[in-house]
């Protein structure tokens, strides 16, 4: 029995022979499931008239509500499943495929469940939270589809360590070439060597803008003193060349960080709001049945 047989025998298709995105998993199996679920929900909503008296009640309303609540629980469960590494319940990619499509279907299920009755109350609040979680999820899909490729292209086969190493190398070289220049220039370069603004606050990471970048400042300084420097021309030119090289590398690292941040940032909405949603959902159910 080969390795692949071992998994097929266990009923797990853990061994795809080529790369397949979680979105396309198993020829869009979960997209098909989700479509069926949405169609059934619409049929239920249109078929049972009058629907959901009052506000999502009635057997059709309760059915949609129960399916929606179970879906939310199941979708939350994904966070736990992601961290159980030692299980044999198949690939996480398959789970995510289901998570995404059924999560999208949830939007329809829940919207129909409301019967389009909204107001300033706990019920609509829970619904709104759910919509934000779903919207953040949609952004996540966009990020996952977009940035991985850009990240690879941006790196040109360098690792972060290599890029940082190269910057350290440039810093050493800068120290040498700037020597013949005047004190203010040396000070500007010294500042540029001392602080390399990379990463930083969430906003910096996501925007990729660093207005107080010491390297940009040093370049501006060099350009300002460009005229009248004939004797030390060569030192000036070399310093600028090194600075530009450093600026290009910094820009590349910052883009790298930005892409990474974009792929992570939305989870900071998605996860906490999931728990807020669970709380709101509980309140919603208690309000309906026990008050």
């Amino acid at each position: 029995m080969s390795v692949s047989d071992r998994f097929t025998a266990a009923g797990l298709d853990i061994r795809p022979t080529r790369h397949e995105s979680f979105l396309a998993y198993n020829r869009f199996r979960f997209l098909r499931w989700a479509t069926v679920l949405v169609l059934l929900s619409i049929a239920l909503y249109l078929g049972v008239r009058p629907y959901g008296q009052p506000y999502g009640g009635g057997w059709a309303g309760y059915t949609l509500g129960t399916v929606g609540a179970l879906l939310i629980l199941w979708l939350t469960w994904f966070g736990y499943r992601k961290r159980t590494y030692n299980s044999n319940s198949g690939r996480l990619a398959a789970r995510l495929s289901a998570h995404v499509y059924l999560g999208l279907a949830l939007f329809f299920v829940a919207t129909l469940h409301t019967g389009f009755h909204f107001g300033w109350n706990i019920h609509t609040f829970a619904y709104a939270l759910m919509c934000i979680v779903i919207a953040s999820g949609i952004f996540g899909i966009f990020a996952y589809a977009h940035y991985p490729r850009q990240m690879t292209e941006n790196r040109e086969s360098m690792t972060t360590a290599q890029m940082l190493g190269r910057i350290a190398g440039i810093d050493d070289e800068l120290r040498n070439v700037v020597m013949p220049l005047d004190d203010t220039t040396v000070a500007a370069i010294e500042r540029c060597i001392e602080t390399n603004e990379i990463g930083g606050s969430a906003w910096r990471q996501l925007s990729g803008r660093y207005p107080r970048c010491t390297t940009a400042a040093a370049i501006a300084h060099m350009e300002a003193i460009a005229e009248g420097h004939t004797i030390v021309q060569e030192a000036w030119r070399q310093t600028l060349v090194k600075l530009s090289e450093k600026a290009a590398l910094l820009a590349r690292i910052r883009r790298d960080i930005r892409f990474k941040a974009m792929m992570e940032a939305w989870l900071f909405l998605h996860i906490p709001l999931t728990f807020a949603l669970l709380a709101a959902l509980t309140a919603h159910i208690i309000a309906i049945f026990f008050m």
Partner: protein
Amino acid sequence: MDRPLAAEFKVAIVGSGPAGLSAAAHAAKLGVSHVLFERTPHINDTIFKYQKRKHVMATPEVLPLRSDLDFKEESREEIIESWTAAVETDKINLRLGVEVTAIKGQKGDFTLTLSSGEAVAAENVVMAIGVQGNLNRLRIPGNDLPFVQYQLDDPDEYKGEEIVVIGTGDAGLENALALAVNNNVSIVNRVADFPRAKAGNIALIEAAIKRGDIQHLANCEPKGLEDGGFLVLDTADGAGVRLKCDRVIARIGALPPRRFVESCGIVFPNDSPTAYPAVSETYESQIPGLYIVGALAGYPLIKHCLNQGYEVVEYIQGNKIPPADEPLIQAKLDDAGVKMNVNELVAAVRERLPLFAALTTLQVREFLIHSNIHYPKSGEVVFKRGEFANSLYNILGGEVGIQVDPDNPDEMVRLRRGDFFGEMALISGRRRTSTVIATTQALLLEIDRNTMVKLVRSEPTIKAGIDKAAVIREIKTFLAPQVEDNLLRDVVESSAVVEFRPNEKLIEEDATDDSVYLIRKGSVTVSMNCGGKDVVLAYVPAGNYVGEMALITHRNRAATVTAASATEAIRMDSAAFRGLLEKDPALRRKVEAKLEQRMMDRNLMQRNAEAGDLIKFLVREGCGEATDVLLIDESLCVRCDNCEKACAETHHGVSRLNREAGPTFEMLHVPTSCRHCEDPHCMQDCPPDAIHRAPNGEVFISDQCIGCGNCERNCPYGVIQMAAVPEKKPGLLSWMFFGRGPGPGEDKSPAGLARRTGGKHAVKCDMCKGIDGGPACVRACPTGAAIRVDPAGFIDVMRHAGA
């Protein structure tokens, strides 16, 4: 402690490693007049040089210890202390700091020349000098100044120093890299690149130089060392420099002991660097009275060495004691339910298995320790088609049937006493091609892969014997399953097995030869020169033939065929092959149809140079010799590192894969992770034979690992790490009350752990062998970016990229 030398000794022992010291201890115990020479100022130079506090393993556990020296699993320091004490108490006649430089003479009258210039006479000589050899020293003035050293035990010992490393082999590069963490390191290089190191180390050193972590003194030649820490270098421009440094570490290789051994008149079986001189069952070399024991005789574990030291003295005294491993082999026989004793088994092997006729009794016993004995009843399955190969089976009695055609299980090729089987997968490192069933009760001897590899290397007749049978079976299996044996005779008789190194060419474009090659091990790429560029058209793994086009079309070679990894092919003579096609039209049609398909594939590939580049890339990264490799599609990978987390979570907290490291081509990334090679380089030189291949193909390291680091050095892909031996986490209570293990807040860093547990051992990917769900990395990847592929899938990945 020097005692006066008697003019003549019954036995002179050279080298005070475990083997030599044990021999001396036993001679002293028996009151045999003896002398033990050791060239260094201390006993046991090899063990002396282990990493401080190294935990020394006493494998194999099952082997009983037979020595006057104590030995159990303990630290390096404890062993050295107890054996140093034994020299006094046992009254061993030891002479330290004396190198034996020549051995002349014959039994009863040997003369040993010593480095001091003296000569000593002895009746017998026991050579126990190990395989470590002599570290080369710089040949420049000042080479023994105190700031110069020729080895490095623990790079973490030095901090904040200016260190110059001389030597650009793997040892030099590894030392420089390790030292650069805490020191200013420069490396002296005669040339500008690193031709003598392996690819992984070169990549690391080049990156470190680029980063400025290590200063590269290229095109420099050391000229001299001066008091006060100065190194004088000749530079390319002739100016020369005088460097001030705290320490010079010269790693310029070692002189293997082989030359010394040969100068004593002992012959090695072949030129392989892993060849050992042959010895008899009493450890006697070809020169009567000159005995060889320990690592030099091919027994690299301390326990073997100790036992042999004891035994060799008994043999010199004329006592034919049974070897210590006797009970081990007997247990194998008893477990299998075979009523035989060990001597009968050894005799049976020597009489009934012509393949091993050339081996000495000692060699037979040695491989029996590493073999399994099977005694299947009629109808029992020996192995199944599709399993990965571990071993060669020999029939000592009874009969087996080979199911060549999976669709037709009743049709079987019968093999009988004296035959062997399982050699095809053993050669290719791939899966078994057929299922084998015992057709009567059969007595089978299964010899494990590592042992077979060593036997084949040391004894040419075994290789010839295996090849003779394998060639016929391979041609039948891979080329002509339905063809009668007599039609194949010409092809088989005119064929030859040829070996190719990686990147060596089997066939060159435009050449006029026209033999056909059947690849039986490794893999090849087919490429064509298109406007000066070498465009790869196909990747062909073992089990396929190449080169039929010239023969069928009667033209010059249309493409170049290059070995992608170490490759073995059966070269079939063109006239004989043509004759076969004429006699068998069905086969001819099959070959022609395949050719047509190949032409079409080639045209497709020619229009798609990128796919060819992808093949080149993957082959360079070792996928050509892989049985299972992790590939990441970077256009899907969201860099969450869940794969690494999953690996660490399921493997004692140490991830065996490094997702970010490793090269990328287009969007395909080959992370630093084990390829589970067909012929694993890591297995080559593992003293306790701790690296194995499981039936599912996983190459894994067992807990027999002694932490010597050979596999880490031998793996060309840098995927093995030396990690601290994991501690069992104590329960909170037993930690509080009994102070066991690391408690909360204690130093849990790998270095801290290594310090406490006294050692590291080798770890690598085991493809999650023990986990039912399969490889955790692939399972944990949320996006489908990470997959593992075997050679078949590998072709699929390429075809996919080509389409």
